[in-house]
């Protein structure tokens, strides 16, 4: 009972943030609403017992990615008069409803088993580390993540350098 109440409150905050992202008139407000939604997702992780994921969510998404978005926004020569253009797309709510129904059916039919109390064990730092550094488990993907980060870093610097040279 208490759990579902907490879940519904947090979900309301996340949805409010998500709606704020698409409805905000100024792009800066949209980024702030995105931060709210991402923090709410971190709270959902906490209620599921996945505290490590919650910390990652705050550290990387709410902390890092949102800061990156803010800097990228401030790079633009956006004047204060910039407003979202009026839209005539009536299809948007329809497609959103269809997507929600499909997602709901998928979740309902997939039969996700509730982890219950085991979630805090599976999602703990120790067990995640045990999977990453276990030679039989995810060592190679872990190193590939390093290569992926390297590629992302080099690519972004290359593109930004080309842009700045203009």
């Amino acid at each position, binding site marked *: 009972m*208490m*759990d579902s109440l*907490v879940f519904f409150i947090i979900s309301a905050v996340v949805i409010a943030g998500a709606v704020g992202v698409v409805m905000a008139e100024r792009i800066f407000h949209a980024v702030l609403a995105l931060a709210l939604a991402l923090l709410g997702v971190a709270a959902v992780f*906490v*209620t599921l*017992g996945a505290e*490590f994921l919650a910390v*990652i969510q705050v*550290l*990387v998404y709410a*902390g*890092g*990615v949102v*800061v*990156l978005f*803010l*800097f*990228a926004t*401030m*790079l*633009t*020569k*956006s*004047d*204060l008069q910039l407003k979202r253009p009026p839209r005539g797309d009536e299809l948007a709510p329809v497609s959103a409803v269809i997507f929600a129904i499909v997602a709901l059916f998928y979740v309902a039919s997939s039969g996700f088993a509730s982890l*219950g*109390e085991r979630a805090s064990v599976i999602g703990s*730092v*120790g067990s*995640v*580390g*045990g999977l*990453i*550094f*276990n*030679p039989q488990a995810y*060592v190679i993907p*872990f*190193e590939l*993540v*390093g*290569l992926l*980060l*390297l590629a*992302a*870093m*080099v690519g*972004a*610097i*290359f593109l*930004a*350098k080309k*842009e*700045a*040279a203009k």
Partner: protein
Amino acid sequence: MSVGEQYITIALFVIVGAIFPVLTIFVASLLRKPRTPEPQKYLTYECSVLPFGPAWVQHNVEYYMYALLFVIFDVETVFLYPWAMTYRSFGLFATVEVIIFIAVLALGLAYAWKKGALEWMRGWR
């Protein structure tokens, strides 16, 4: 309640933090009557200097480069933490893995350094 009891403190903190600014602004609006609007009152307060220009100035690309590198090494830190927690059970093997991981990312840092992404306000080489 499967949620840890210690999170009640954080939840209270968030709730109080959300209510506090709203409440103070509401109380201030009660206190500042009578209401006599004047154009000077709506100026942005800036230490006795008249504000000029928009608050939105275009930032330099250096800020973006720093944010970008921050995100990358943020993710690196996320991976170092589980390694520190499981160091005792995996020992040398995991340490070698992490050293390779850090070395790969150090290559990226060296590239950024060489390209002058860490230089401040000096343009690009």
